[in-house]
Each structure stands twice: as structure tokens, then as C-alpha cells.
């Protein structure tokens, strides 16, 4: 019982209960939008539910979409917990995906070796890219939020160049993409004929692991302390620099892993814009905000957002209401949540040092 309390189920209940209100308000705004285009609110939401969880097939599709969002959201929430506003998940995912594709193509060996090499390469690429932003902060005091945002674009164009020119698939149809991976390196599907792949299990495991790490380990405690009260952390002997670099590295590695699984489990190659167009990274940041940086909460919020997105596809297929209903709901949800986020940020601001970074 004590152990259960230590993870803090009460906090989880809160972390779920407060966004619940925001979800209701978001759906209410969505209802107004549906009503203005003359759709039936009940039918539309019924279609949305069917599109997201209506059948086993749709449920697994939703979970497939949620997989990269969960992993990236875990990375973002770790950084947020440590008090660093890492907006660089997009760039970290992109480089992770590209590195994973290259490793899976060029590393010799059987499928398992290729998959492991790809995962290591992906995590390393994402982690190092994130580490660069952290290093610029600790070494030159560049604002982390701004550098991570800028590094996204640099990663995006660099990867775009790589697959459009030097690494472009030879004799292909002409799109900017690498060649197809050897099918031995594909992640196994969990169910025959469904899109859900083994990456989802890893994502769930990672969420539990991160929750355990933050709640039970000394490093996890230091990270939480640094995030909630940097001065107290400094007083307690926590070194901001090394801990920041570590948490940024892990944060980026998780985002890199998210990119890796998109390559190994879904697309089987790196395609230009495969990370940016579905907006995985921003969904991950939204999921983190929704759940107040709680790892398990972030994973659930990621599934919720993925469900809104796949559900909206169902809505578009079967009703007159356009797909964009999902971004209307998602963004109003975040606006409602931001008032609550305020509360924790307010508490932090008091404690922040003069050079304190993103809260």
C-alpha cells in the first residue's frame, strides 16, 4: 500500500480529473463548431468514437498513431519535470528517424541486429541533438526554448536535404525518401493484418519505467527537485548543468526512439516530412501539457489526442463535417488547460533564479 501511495495515485486521479473538465469544454466548443456547419452533434461524435475505437481495427490504428506521440510526450514531460521547456521534440524525432533508417539499411546482420542498431542510432541522434541545445544553455546561456525551436528547422531542412539528394532511393519513383528497409528489420505487428506494431509495447513500458524512475530513484528525485524548486535543489547540492544535460539527453533519446519506431514499424523507410506533417511532436507537447508532465498521464493523453485525430478521419469519411474539427477541439482543450498549467508555473516562478530557464 505504501508503495502504491509513493507513486501517488491520488495525484494521478487529479492529473486525470482536471483535464477531464477541459475535455468536456473542448468537446463543447467542438459541438458549437459542428452545429454551425449544420451537422448533427450526436451523430458526429458517434462517428468520431467509431472512427477511433469503433472496431478492433480502428482501435489498433489509433494506438499506432499514439505510439510516437506517447514516446515523444514522455521525453517532453521528463524535460518539463526538470524545468526545461524542450520544444525540440520535432527535430529530435526527425534526426532519430533518419539515423534509424540509415542504421537499418547499412548495418549488416540479421533482423534483430538491424533493429537494435536502428534503435541505438535513433536514440543517439535524437539525444545528441537535444544535448546540443542543453549544452548551448549551460555553456553559453542561450535560451533553451528558443534554441530548441530553431534547431527543429535546422534538423528538418538537413534531413530533407539528405533524403532529397545524397541518400535518395536509387531509381525510385522520385519522392524524397530513402530506400525501403529489408523486411527482416521491420518491427513485428502485434496482430495479423493490423497496423499496430511492437513499438507500442515499448512505449507503454517506457511510460511505466519513467514513472518509476521519477518516483523511486535518487536521480528522478533530483530532477523533480530541480524542476519544482531550483534554489532548493542547488542548496541540496544538485548540480544544474550535468543534470540538465542528462535530462535533455534522455528527453531527446525518447523523441529519437519515437522517430525510430515510425521508420521501423510504420513507413519502413525515411520519407521527407513523415514526422512534420502528422504533427506528432506538437501533439506530444499538447499531451504533456494536458497531463501536467505526469508520465502515465501523458501516455493516456497521447492516446486521447491520437483518438481525436483518427476519430476525425472517420468523421470526414462519413459526415459533412470536415477533419479539422479535431484541431478545433484539441486547441480549445489546450486553451482551457493552460489556465490550470498557470497554477503550477506560478508556484515555480517564485523559486526561479535570475538565470532560471524555462519553467
Amino acid at each position, binding site marked *: 500500500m505504501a508503495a502504491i501511495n509513493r507513486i501517488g495515485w491520488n495525484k494521478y486521479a487529479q492529473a486525470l480529473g482536471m483535464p477531464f473538465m477541459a475535455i468536456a469544454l473542448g468537446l463543447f466548443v467542438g459541438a458549437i*463548431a459542428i452545429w*454551425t*456547419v449544420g451537422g448533427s452533434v450526436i451523430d458526429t461524435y458517434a462517428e468520431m468514437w467509431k472512427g477511433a475505437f469503433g472496431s478492433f481495427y480502428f482501435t489498433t490504428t489509433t494506438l499506432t498513431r499514439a505510439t510516437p506521440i506517447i514516446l515523444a510526450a514522455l521525453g517532453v514531460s521528463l524535460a518539463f519535470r526538470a524545468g526545461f*521547456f524542450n*520544444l525540440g521534440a520535432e527535430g529530435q524525432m526527425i534526426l532519430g528517424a533518419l539515423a534509424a533508417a540509415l542504421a537499418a539499411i547499412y548495418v549488416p546482420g540479421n533482423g534483430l541486429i538491424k533493429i537494435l542498431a536502428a534503435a541505438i542510432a535513433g536514440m543517439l541522434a535524437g539525444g545528441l541533438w537535444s544535448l546540443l541545445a542543453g549544452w*548551448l544553455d549551460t555553456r*553559453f*546561456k*542561450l*535560451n533553451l*526554448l*528558443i*534554441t530548441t*525551436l*530553431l*534547431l527543429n*528547422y*535546422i534538423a528538418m*531542412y*538537413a534531413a*530533407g*536535404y539528405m533524403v*532529397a*539528394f545524397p541518400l535518395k532511393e536509387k531509381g525510385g519513383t522520385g519522392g524524397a525518401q530513402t530506400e525501403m528497409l529489408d523486411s527482416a528489420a521491420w518491427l513485428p505487428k502485434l496482430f495479423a493484418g493490423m497496423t499496430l506494431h511492437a513499438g507500442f509495447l515499448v512505449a507503454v513500458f517506457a511510460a511505466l519505467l519513467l514513472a518509476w524512475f521519477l518516483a523511486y530513484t535518487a536521480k528522478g528525485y533530483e530532477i523533480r527537485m530541480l524542476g519544482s524548486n531550483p534554489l532548493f535543489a542547488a542548496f541540496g547540492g544538485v548540480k544544474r548543468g550535468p543534470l540538465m544535460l542528462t535530462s535533455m539527453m534522455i528527453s531527446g533519446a525518447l523523441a529519437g526512439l519515437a522517430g525510430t519506431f515510425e521508420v521501423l514499424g510504420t513507413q519502413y523507410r525515411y520519407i521527407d516530412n513523415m514526422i512534420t506533417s502528422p504533427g506528432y511532436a*506538437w501533439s506530444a*507537447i*499538447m499531451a504533456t*501539457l494536458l497531463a501536467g508532465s505526469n508520465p502515465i498521464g501523458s501516455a493516456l493523453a497521447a492516446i486521447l489526442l491520437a483518438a481525436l485525430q483518427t476519430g476525425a478521419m472517420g468523421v470526414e469519411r462519413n459526415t459533412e463535417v*470536415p477533419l*479539422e*474539427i*479535431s*484541431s*478545433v477541439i*484539441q*486547441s*480549445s482543450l*489546450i*486553451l482551457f488547460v*493552460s*489556465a490550470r*498549467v*498557470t497554477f503550477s*508555473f*506560478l508556484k515555480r*516562478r517564485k523559486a*526561479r533564479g535570475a*538565470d*532560471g*530557464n*524555462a*519553467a
Partner: protein
Amino acid sequence: METLLDWSLLSATLWKVAPLLLAALAGAMCARVGIFNVALEGMMLTGAFTAILGNYWFDNVLLGVVFACLCVGALSLLFGYLVIGLQANAIVVGTAINFLATGLTAFSLFAIFGVKGQFRDSAMSGLPKWNIPLVQDIPVVGELLSGHTPLVYLAFLLVVALQFFLFRTVMGFRLLAVGENPVAAKSLGLPVRRYQYGAIVFSGILCGLAGAQLSLGQVTLFTENMTAGRGFIALVATMLGQSNPIGVMGASLLFGFLDTLSTRLQSFSVPTHFTMMFPYAMTIIVMLFFKDKSYLRQSGRLDSK
């Protein structure tokens, strides 16, 4: 076959730079009162859509532009209320506003015009192009400076006006004081929040103009997500220009030129990735040298009041 560099390249830079400059000035005003406005992208997109919508409803370009300014002004009030009134984190709210704008414009495009992706009405007239007498007859200069929309000229006039306002008027000094040290400003009896609201609404209006230039300037149409990251480039121009109107203009001109150059390079099938990447890479490098500027400290505080 086009040549790589000619005068039309510079002329194209001028109209490409106008929306960027307007939005970057908007970002600079917010940064000057200590608010990091990441919502520029969404505000610009809303401006582009509402300008077309106003033009369509009132059948008048001027009313269209005014309507865009009003709508984006209202959106910026929402941003301001959440950030100043409710003390929410500006980055979080800004990100949400960007999403809201993307979703709502695409949704309204369908709800109002019944189309998806793009709306264009060949009967609709765009912003007029002004030919400046005398100047237009000078060979090269005329081609460069004449024949732009009023908003292009307004953007550059605003640079001068804002530079004067910020550094030569009492009100401008007070506004700077609000951003520099809100507590001290408050102790002097300055209405800090009113200055912040003022700056945010003004930036909203500027973004409305930027959007209008985008959708009614060179073309007269709206496409989904037509800002395509320009708001973020504007944000970067704000940082590079150190929130100083003249500096912001320099940065915007540079980025606008690179943008035109990228388009030109595409017709030569030369990779454009590096010209597109340049603004972001350069800003990081420049930040290394200007890291102590007060405005960066402000954005570091994020939610500084």
C-alpha cells in the same frame, strides 16, 4: 531562361518581406513589454483568412483589411487575457492559438465557402498597386520601389514610426520600462497591464495587416495553412533584430531575400534546403554574441510580468 540575380529579385523581395516585417514588428512590440509571442503564425493565418472573408462579405478591399485587423485584434485580446489576466504561460497559450487558427480557418473555409483546401473568387479584387509618380519613371529604382500594395509601404513607414515612438517619445520610454522592469514601472505608477494589453492588441492588428498582405497582396486567394511557417520566421527576425524596429527590418529584409532566392533557385533545381535553413542557423550564431541583450532575458523569463 531566367538569370539568377536581377532587379526583379529585389523587387520580389520587397513584397515578400512585407508580411514578414509586419509580423516581426508585432513580435518586437510584444517582446518589448516582456511577452514572448509565439502566436504570430496563428494570428497571421487568421488575418489572411478574415481579410478574404471581409472582402467577400463587404465586397470592399479596405473593409476586408479592417475586418481582418478587428478579428485578429480580438484573437490577440484572448491571448492577452490568458497571458496577462490569467497569468498563463505565453508559450503554451501561443502554441494553442496557433493550433486554433489552423483548425478554425480550415474549418471555417468549409463552413462558410463550402470548399476545402483553397478558396479563390476571380471576381474579387485584391489590394491596389500604387505607382509612385516620378519615382516610377526612374529606370531601376522605379521598378524596385513603385507598384507595390499600400501595405508594403505602410510596413516600412511603421518601422520609422515605431523607432521614433519607442526611443523618442515619453510613452515609448514608459513602454520600454514596462518590459525592462515591470516592478519598477509599477512602482512609478505606470499602468503595466494596460501597456501590455496595448502592445498585444497592436501586435494583433499588425498581424492582421500581415495576413491581409499575404491573401490580398500578390495573389487574391486563401489556402489552408498559407502562412507556412512565416510567423515563425518573423519570430526569428524579431530575435535577430533584437526587437529593435530598424534591426527587425534588416533581419526581415535578409530573410525575405533568402526566401525569394530559394524560390529562384528552385527553378534551377538547386537544393534550397540550405538557404531555407540559413535564418535559423544564423540566429543561433548571432544569439551567441548578443546573449546579454535585455530582451533575450525577458523571453528567458517567458512569463515575465
